[in-house]
């Protein structure tokens, strides 16, 4: 419950932050709601923390090329209450409101959640189903990573150690319907299983799971069962039958493999029914 000694820098620009981060021994501090508990348990012992929470450009939420750009340091609460998000990407507001409690939502950020890549975090399923792109920047410049390439394992991402996430770019498709449904782990209230689903007017369906396995992922088999078809009971049942098959399923205190897989099917069904 006592961290090791570290230096603390408050960055005012992205360039500052990248410079201060250095290579390997520094850590970005955003909302601190994943990092600080890890520091206190000494699971993480960085030499330097670079606080990005006060960088205005990282906190903005704006429209660009018909889509929305959500700054990496936007808090869960910023997103849940933002009018643009509420009207154009209601799934984002819906899921943000299900994260933790008010204190957590007031400090925790979307960028922090994605970078931390907790296998049970809510945002991961949402950005996957929305087909979002994650904008990152480092000493070698900026690049964009598709959400589907971002999560590489348990607490692991495609982000390099010297890079920071700057924004999440989310396409807005007129007439799309999307939802995030989660069965909360009773103690942590993270997703025991979370399912995000999005259906665009062309009938394409994206289905993503979090909490189910080590890595949040799209479920292509379930998507195939419903894409390009009317979302009727038979199609939903077929998608549910496919859901969670062929992935290595997490086992913990609150769910065996069998139960978690069952929940994946139940929550997929609920998600598809909600957007049908």
């Amino acid at each position: 419950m006592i961290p090791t000694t570290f230096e603390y820098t408050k960055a005012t620009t992205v360039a500052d932050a990248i410079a201060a981060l250095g290579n390997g021994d520094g850590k970005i501090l955003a909302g601190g709601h994943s990092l600080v508990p890890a520091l206190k348990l000494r699971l993480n012992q960085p030499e330097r923390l670079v606080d990005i929470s006060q960088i205005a450009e990282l906190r903005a939420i704006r429209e660009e090329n018909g889509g929305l750009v959500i700054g990496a340091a936007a808090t869960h609460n910023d997103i849940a209450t933002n009018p643009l998000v509420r009207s154009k990407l209601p799934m984002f507001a819906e899921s943000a409101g299900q994260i933790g409690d008010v204190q957590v939502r007031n400090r925790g950020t979307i960028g922090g959640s994605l970078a931390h890549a907790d296998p049970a975090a809510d945002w991961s399923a949402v950005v996957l189903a929305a087909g979002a792109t994650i904008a990152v920047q480092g000493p070698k410049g900026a690049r964009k990573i598709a959400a589907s390439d971002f999560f590489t394992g348990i607490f692991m991402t495609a982000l390099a150690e010297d890079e920071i996430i700057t924004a999440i770019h989310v396409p807005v498709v007129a007439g799309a319907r999307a939802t995030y449904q989660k069965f909360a782990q009773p103690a942590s209230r993270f997703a025991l299983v979370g399912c995000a689903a999005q259906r665009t007017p062309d009938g394409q369906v994206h289905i993503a799971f979090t909490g189910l396995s080590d890595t949040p992922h799209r479920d292509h088999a379930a998507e195939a069962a419903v894409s390009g078809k009317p979302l009727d009971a038979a199609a939903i049942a077929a998608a549910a039958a496919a859901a969670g098959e062929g992935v290595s399923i997490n086992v913990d205190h609150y769910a065996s493999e069998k139960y978690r897989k069952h929940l994946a099917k139940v929550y997929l069904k609920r998600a598809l029914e909600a957007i049908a």
Partner: protein
Amino acid sequence: MSTNYIGKSVKRVEDKRFVTGKGNYTDDIVLPGMTHGMFVRSPYAHAKIKGIDTAAAQQMPGVVAIFTGADLAEVNGVPCGWQVNFKSGDTMKEPKHPLLAHGKALHVGDPVAFVIAETREQAKDAADAVEVDYEELPAVTNPAAGVQAGAPLVHDEAPGNVAFDWELGNPKAEVDAALAAAAHVTTLEFVNQRMAPNAIEPRSYIGAYDTTSDKYTLYTSTQNPHLIRLLMCAFVLGIPEHKVRVVGPDVGGGFGSKIFHYTEEALITWCAQKISRPVKWTSTRSEAFMLDAHGRDHVTKAQMGFDANGKITALKVHTYANMGAFLSTFAPAVPTYLHGTLLQGLYTTPKINVDVTAVFTHTNAVDAYRGAGRPEATYLLERLIDLSALEMGVDPVELRLKNLIPPFDGVTQPGYQTQVALQYDSGNYQGVIEKGLAMLGYADFRKAQKEAAESGKLLGVGFSTYIEACGIAPSAVVGSLGARAGLYEVGQVRVQPTGKVSVFTGAHSHGQGHETTFAQVVADKLGIPMEDVDIVHGDSDTVAFGMGTYGSRSLAVGGSAIIKSIDKIVEKGKKIAAHKLEAAPGDMEFANGKFTVKGTDKSLSFGDIALTAYVPHVYPADLEPGLDFSSFYDPTNFTYPFGCHIAVVEVEQETGKVALKRFIAVDDVGNVINPMIVDGQIHGGVAQGIGQALFEGVEYDENGQMTNASYMDYCMPRADDLPMFETGSQVTPCPHNPLGVKGAGEAGCIGSTPAVVNAVIDALWSGGHKVRDILMPLTPERVWTAMQ
């Protein structure tokens, strides 16, 4: 006597400082020159300590001293406060519980070294640098497994890991015969799971030593400072009591876990003298999860027999009670005298036998946790009777009513003698059940349940009745049962010259609101405003003596001691008043703060008399000045609160998730001084009991690691898990204490757990899932699995 305060929901006096952040907890205290300690703790549940290398740590910045078990080889361990003998008459096995492990570590978190530094951070850094060479040994965590042949041994001196075995009630042969003759026998094997107490304030201690006076001070987050002083001085450190002051400042919850004398308390006091500087240690939340004494952990087999008319004919119980690696202060009393003795419940069961095997395991110590033994007894009885009703196809309420002990007031009718040693004081058990049923609307509920089942919804109702033994306890009785201390209480009432009153009580609030309720009582009894009364507690230098707060005893025992002192004040006051008014003391009466010559308008106020007592110019020749009395009150019996709790749940078929829809608690806690505080106690207790039913439970893996030692995994009940509680009350005064009070601190936690589990089982049966039992906590997965 007027009652300006008693029976009224006076707002809590102490809340002003608590809600404004002005509370003064042990960790808030900073003494000059204070150092900070951190423990090096065993990561293994069972290991040989082959070597400890502190050389590198000694060189770390700020390090003041490092102690290991070898430094304390000559120091006693912490004692157990209650001795239970084997059935054979042999004394229980009581292996030394050293302040620091020496040679072997016997549970995860067993302290191996204590590092003291200038700051807490430096102490932590240095503790991380201590190198310990362990040889891991096999461990056992489950008490039923612990007694099996070949199980890893915790202590060489306790073969089979048995700490003691114990039996109570009717001879086993008679109970077996009654069961054999029964028309129906319900058998249930179950676990009453281990609970982490989770007080919001972690344990915190400061030891200090004054070289010139050779006097020690221990600040401690405790429920009973004098008891800690007694145990630490007499049994561990061998320091005379007049050289030790123990202070319990504000204490942020305990639920039992802060009763016990912990090794850290004695160690820190010992260290303060060794380094001649104050030392503070505050538990981390991780340490609190692993090392605050846990509760429950019973592995039980119980059988209840019925005759053809549904009358209970016999009850037979065997429990393996997990003691953990060491016997904590009250641990032996919990599965025995606080559990076995409650197995009569509210029922007329004519034959009862209870057999308990207390087992050492490589786990943290288990001791009293809110309710302590009584929840385990209630859970057992109420699960059995509900399951019996399901198996016999009869209504669970009718089955209870059929077997209920009839009402008795304990004054004109005698107390009720149970088969398991206790004599209940007074009771109207039917009353609380009927009230609960009316609040529920039982007939309507069954209709709604049927309709719900037809549309695929699983609604269920669960009942539970309980009785508990509180007001702990008559010293002679508990002494004969093995308690190594008396369990009276001390109350001193000091009237100041101006008529203001300071009350010193040995009870020690850790959330109960004594500063309010005790002041209400004193103010009414003396006919003065509450603001004129100050309640002082928690300091062995100001309070003469005391046994502390647990077992719902503070008002019943501590309040009674205060009443005794008030009686003495009034009696002396009458003598002073009689002298001043030139009347006979026998002609004086005292009411509403006035001493009056009976039948006249000649009177003197309480304030006049107080002043006269301290400025005795016109004063009886044979009377000492002053108005200050101290009394010890030793109760003549336990008190027996009782009640009926009802839960309504809905189980989600698809996921097994339980939603608690309603919770009705009708409690009879005797007379009520402050209904708001009683309600608060009931609410908190009910939430805690629901926590055990649905959410909480310590889990160990086969290596003895606690696998859910954080709030990420250990699920506490939260506000949005709970419905608005519906509380009802009935008052059957306690016949044997002056306030007629029984105690309300644990009731909620005792009645609620089985009500919730029974409701879930009822819901499942309503949908055709004939499930007999589900292991607590009833997580969604467990409930879902039971339906498959």
